[in-house]
């Protein structure tokens, strides 16, 4: 079977060269405009690592932001599930999650299979609508999106971030907008991940290579492993519940 190359798609991860060098096997997303690193050379070991300490690139997955005074009104009208509390994330029906960054800004992330009705609805919004103070912010290319899975996350992130991210201080569904290795980042602990902790890390895509290398170095003493999206969705095994959490 012919290998899927990220370069064959209009959109690609800012670190696709690094993933290729690591031997990632890519699979196209349902939308057909990008390919994601689905697994590396040992899918079974990757699924096991996702329950301990693992790093995945989710950058090609869809995501959108919405900002403005009427943001929450628009989200309610769309049937989004949330409470109006800044710096919290909420799982959404139909896939993906919604992170509230302030009382007037939200960020919607698709699940690892690319599904998120909310992202699609935001993407369909016009840049401005008369009478509504809520405008869409394309985040698909502006931000990298990495996933850090497994209970050893405090050991890794403590070396890169000043915020106390230990479980007692940073529960499921918590969001921190802070500095990760001196680079601005959004840290989202997925809601309902108590059994299998999972973080989404987002930041400026121009810093993706740098942050990826920082995370890899921070993981090394704890034997963390690179994994593809299949290890997070649990496809074919006992992977951590990114799919479950995000859906």
């Amino acid at each position, binding site marked *: 079977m012919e290998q899927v190359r990220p370069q064959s798609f209009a959109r690609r991860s800012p670190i696709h060269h690094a993933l290729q060098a690591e031997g990632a096997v890519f699979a196209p997303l349902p939308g057909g405009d990008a390919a994601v690193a689905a697994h590396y050379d040992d899918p079974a070991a990757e699924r096991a690592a996702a329950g301990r300490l693992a790093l995945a690139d989710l950058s090609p997955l869809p995501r959108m932001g919405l900002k403005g005074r009427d943001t929450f009104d628009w989200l309610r009208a769309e049937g989004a599930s949330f409470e109006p509390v800044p*710096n919290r994330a909420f799982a959404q029906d139909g896939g993906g999650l919604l992170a509230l960054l*302030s009382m007037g*800004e939200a960020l919607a992330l698709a699940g690892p299979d690319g599904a998120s009705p909310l992202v699609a609805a935001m993407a369909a919004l016009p840049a401005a609508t008369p009478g509504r103070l809520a405008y869409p912010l394309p985040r698909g290319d502006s931000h990298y999106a990495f996933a850090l899975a497994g209970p050893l996350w405090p050991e890794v992130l403590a070396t890169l971030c*000043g915020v106390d991210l230990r479980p007692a201080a940073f529960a499921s569904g918590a969001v921190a907008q802070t*500095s990760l290795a001196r680079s601005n980042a959004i840290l989202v602990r997925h809601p309902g991940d108590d059994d299998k902790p999972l973080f989404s890390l987002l930041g400026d895509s121009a810093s993706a290579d740098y942050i990826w290398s920082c995370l890899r170095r921070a993981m090394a003493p704890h034997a963390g492993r690179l994994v593809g999206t299949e290890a997070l969705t649990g496809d074919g095994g006992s992977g951590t519940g990114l799919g479950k959490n995000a859906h």
Partner: protein
Amino acid sequence: MKLMRCPLNGERNISEFVCGGEVKAMPDPDKASDADWGRYLFFEDNPDGEIVEWWLHAPSSYWFIARRDTRTEAVLETMTVQEWRERQGTVGSGQAQGQSADSQAHGAQGTNG
């Protein structure tokens, strides 16, 4: 590291923040002389003592107000723009002091909350 409390994000390392300068009244752009406008843009009082300033939490692009002591570098308190306006008694007036804070360059970038 020194800590500062962001009204939206809580206590964070001071390295996550950027000072946006003193809170000061913006002269009417249609009526101000070039000298007054230049003074507004480029000059600050820089007092020896307590000062009220705009601060930005950079990772979240969140602007807020801080009271600080320039002699000790101590941050006395931080508050949202709304809280500061309520303290000034200018909520909803849209004029005078209320407008002076809200219509500054920093305010125009939005306060996110």
